[in-house]
């Protein structure tokens, strides 16, 4: 098996290199058969990397400890599901997994654009260039199929923290998001190389960008959920460099998805869009770099390894080359169109972009601060979570406000009077919410404004749906429900976007609620003892010990009383993984829309029956996950195949003039 994998990786490197030569030569000398053979080479690459992945997977499933990777990240007793996830649980495997996704996506792009002779050959060459870097790493620097000299009888097991459901799906989601961002980047580069600056590159890769955004969103949420369920500190986000590395591309990608609407519609912001996708892509590389290089100390840093310099060099090459390419084209990219008024959708989008990129920059600055301060002042200074909270809290308010404004405000310009009429309902909704919160006893100005703005943003979406649905009802005499369904189906891109806005507003409420009102109680109890947490009383009934070949566990039983009435039992536990000789926490969570009761068995004393519990009461955190779910649904709606859009793209791919006179279905609606 290992030999097969190694051979496949070597062949993949060869065919990918060939594809670049064939693509570039074939396009410049106009030899279609050479371009076709480049395409076939990329498909061969996808097949080869798939073989390598399967080879590693088989070795993991067969517990072939002669392979260093298997010996380091798996064990005989590791449950089968985690043997599969060990594929991306370690350094070499995760790079192989990344390369595999890149190879598959490149193969799909090669198929989608098999009839396009304009941008595709160059875009495919860019993608192949990226693949060559990763294949080079896998073949020569960090080899997944290295053997051990003396085969151990058992492996060292996967890190217990990674033996969790969310950890199983978090990395693949994030990697999918990272890797698919390279498709729009490749087309942007191709546009710059060929000098085709119309929005063809944007339209043909918009779906890839949304796809990437979808998985970046999920990846971040799954990671947060993992931190919430596994790390046992009651929170879900700690502004650790590793988390920031995943968050920054998401922010920039969000900005990009908004600003390309301006270019599609108004032919503005061309340079900005090309820059944004470049930044987003470089941030995905940067994320991989900081999680693997050990340059920035992270609490849960990835293995220290020799990959850092390679990644840094690659990142610098890509950044410098892309920047130079962009600068060389700046003159041709200038757009004659101008913004007309602050009171326009263009302006709202422009400022939403500034805020999103501003947040990304602040996160970047805070993440790199230790490195920068050491370089400049010779002493390492860190900024912790308080820095990120302080900077981002006001920016988040601005963002939610703009998220409300964007969908309702008119393009080009609008009058103050029209503005007042359009925004009357959402504004009243926001003010009522604020007033309600004030009467309910909330006093923090931030919480009051946050809830008001979230209600305002929800109100704008409501107004949009009502407006669209009633227009349909007038024309077609549909029932209200039918009208809403058809409205979404006929304009899925636009209304999918609005559904995402609903999700963002809900998630924002969850974040604010859980940040401001979390309470924590710690107590050491004897069996029979009890502790009060807000309106709840927890009674410690006793400990239950259990053992399997893989792990030992001690499970505490807690009786939960609400105002004296028993309502539930919770079972926080302590696990001990045998192979790694490492304890881990299993949290018990009782979740309701109002608040989460989150119990941690912090420690147990073997001599006595004393158990220390750490219990958090976290209001509204439910809405973070609910909002994430709504965002996911909205994205699926927006991505749903739309017949008109598909034919427009097909026309675009064939190189007809559709780019200039595209049918309205591809455009963002009024």
């Amino acid at each position, binding site marked *: 098996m290992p030999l097969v994998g190694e051979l496949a990786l070597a062949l993949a490197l060869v065919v990918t290199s060939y594809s670049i030569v064939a693509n570039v030569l074939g396009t410049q000398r106009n030899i279609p058969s050479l371009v076709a053979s480049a395409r076939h080479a990329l498909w061969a690459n996808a097949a080869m990397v798939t073989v390598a992945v399967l080879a590693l997977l088989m070795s993991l499933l067969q517990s072939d400890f002669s392979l*260093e990777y298997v010996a*380091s*990240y798996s064990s005989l007793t590791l449950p089968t599901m985690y043997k599969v996830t060990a594929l991306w649980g370690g350094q070499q495997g995760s790079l192989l997994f990344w390369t595999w996704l890149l190879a598959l996506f490149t193969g799909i792009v090669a198929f989608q654009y098999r009839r396009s002779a304009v941008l595709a050959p160059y875009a495919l060459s860019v993608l192949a260039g990226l693949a060559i870097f990763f294949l080079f790493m896998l073949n020569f620097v960090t080899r997944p199929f290295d053997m051990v*000299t*003396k*085969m*151990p009888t058992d492996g*060292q097991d996967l*890190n217990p*923290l990674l033996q969790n459901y969310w950890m199983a799906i978090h990395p693949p989601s994030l990697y999918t998001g990272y890797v698919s961002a390279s498709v729009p980047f490749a087309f942007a580069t191709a546009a710059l190389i060929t000098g085709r600056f119309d929005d063809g590159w944007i339209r043909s890769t918009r779906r890839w960008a949304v796809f990437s955004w979808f998985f970046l969103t999920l990846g971040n949420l799954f990671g947060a959920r993992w931190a919430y369920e596994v790390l*046992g500190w009651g929170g879900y986000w700690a502004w650790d460099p590793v988390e920031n590395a995943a968050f920054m591309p998401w922010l920039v990608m969000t900005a990009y998805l908004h600003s390309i609407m301006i270019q599609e519609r108004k032919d503005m912001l061309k340079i900005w869009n090309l820059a944004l996708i470049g930044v987003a892509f470089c941030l995905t590389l940067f994320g991989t770099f900081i999680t693997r290089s050990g340059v920035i*100390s992270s*609490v*849960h*840093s*990835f*293995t*220290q390894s020799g990959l850092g310099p390679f990644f840094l060099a690659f990142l610098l090459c890509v950044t410098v080359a892309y920047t130079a390419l962009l600068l060389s084209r700046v003159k041709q990219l200038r757009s004659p169109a101008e*913004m*007309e*008024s*602050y009171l326009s959708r263009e302006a709202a989008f*422009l*400022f939403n972009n*500034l*805020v999103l990129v*501003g947040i990304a*920059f*602040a996160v970047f*600055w*805070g993440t790199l*601060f*230790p490195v920068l301060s050491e370089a400049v002042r010779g*002493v*390492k*200074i*860190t*900024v*912790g979570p*308080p*820095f990120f909270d*302080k*900077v981002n809290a*006001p*920016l988040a308010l601005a963002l939610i406000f703009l998220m409300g404004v964007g969908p309702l405000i008119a393009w080009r310009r609008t009058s103050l009077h029209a503005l007042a009429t359009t925004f009357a309902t959402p504004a009243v909704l926001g003010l009522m919410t604020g007033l309600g919160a004030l009467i309910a006893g909330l006093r923090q100005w931030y919480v009051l404004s946050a809830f008001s703005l979230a209600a305002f943003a929800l109100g704008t979406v409501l107004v949009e749906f009502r407006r669209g649905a009633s227009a349909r009802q007038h024309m077609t005499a549909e029932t209200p429900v039918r009208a809403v369904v058809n409205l979404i189906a006929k304009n899925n891109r636009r209304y999918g976007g609005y559904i995402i806005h609903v999700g963002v507003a809900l998630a924002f409420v969850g974040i604010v609620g859980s940040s401001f009102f979390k309470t924590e109680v*710690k107590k*050491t109890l004897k069996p029979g003892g009890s502790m009060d947490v807000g309106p709840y009383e927890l009674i410690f009934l006793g400990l239950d010990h259990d053992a399997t070949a893989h792990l030992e566990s001690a499970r505490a039983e807690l009786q939960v009383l609400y105002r004296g009435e028993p309502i539930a039992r919770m079972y926080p536990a302590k696990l001990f993984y045998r192979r*790694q*000789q*490492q*304890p881990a*926490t299993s949290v018990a969570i009782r979740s309701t829309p109002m608040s989460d009761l989150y119990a*941690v068995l*912090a*420690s*147990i*004393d073997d001599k006595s029956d*004393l158990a*220390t519990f*750490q219990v958090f009461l976290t209001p509204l955190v439910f809405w973070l996950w609910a909002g994430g779910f709504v965002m996911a649904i909205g994205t699926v709606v927006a991505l749903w195949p739309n017949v008109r859009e598909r034919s427009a793209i097909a026309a675009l791919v064939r190189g007809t003039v559709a780019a200039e006179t595209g049918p309205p279905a591809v455009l963002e609606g009024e």
Partner: protein
Amino acid sequence: MPKQARFVIGIMLVVAAIGYLIASAVSNTAEYYLTVNEVNARRGELSGQMLRIAGRVVPGTIQWDPSSLTLKFAISEPPAEGESPVTPVAAGSLGTAVFNVLSRGQPKPDMFAAGRDVIVEGQLDGDNMIEARQVLTSCPSKYVPKSKPE
């Protein structure tokens, strides 16, 4: 005023506001991030400051009282990069500063053990004692036990 100029002013105002937010947040939240020896070398200027100190838990110094959630231990300089990450450092090895750490009211982290690398957040007082606000354990995704396969 030309339209474009009006927007340039608006954009610059937003950029300036974000810059101001970042700068003020940095000055309010910055903490020194130092290793045990670095703190020892410049302890005069650091007293009373919030610090993040990277060190290694000295074996044999851990005292944990679960009923009061009090954790006491000592940290010493972690070995330089390149050295084996799990070699335990003998207590008070020559030429190495050692600080005592006191953490109250916090549960003991899962990964906390003798010989592990930790980051202690807190202030250093006159008697080599760090009153810790937080003790963080590094958890490498690949933990290398004694018997690394060759």
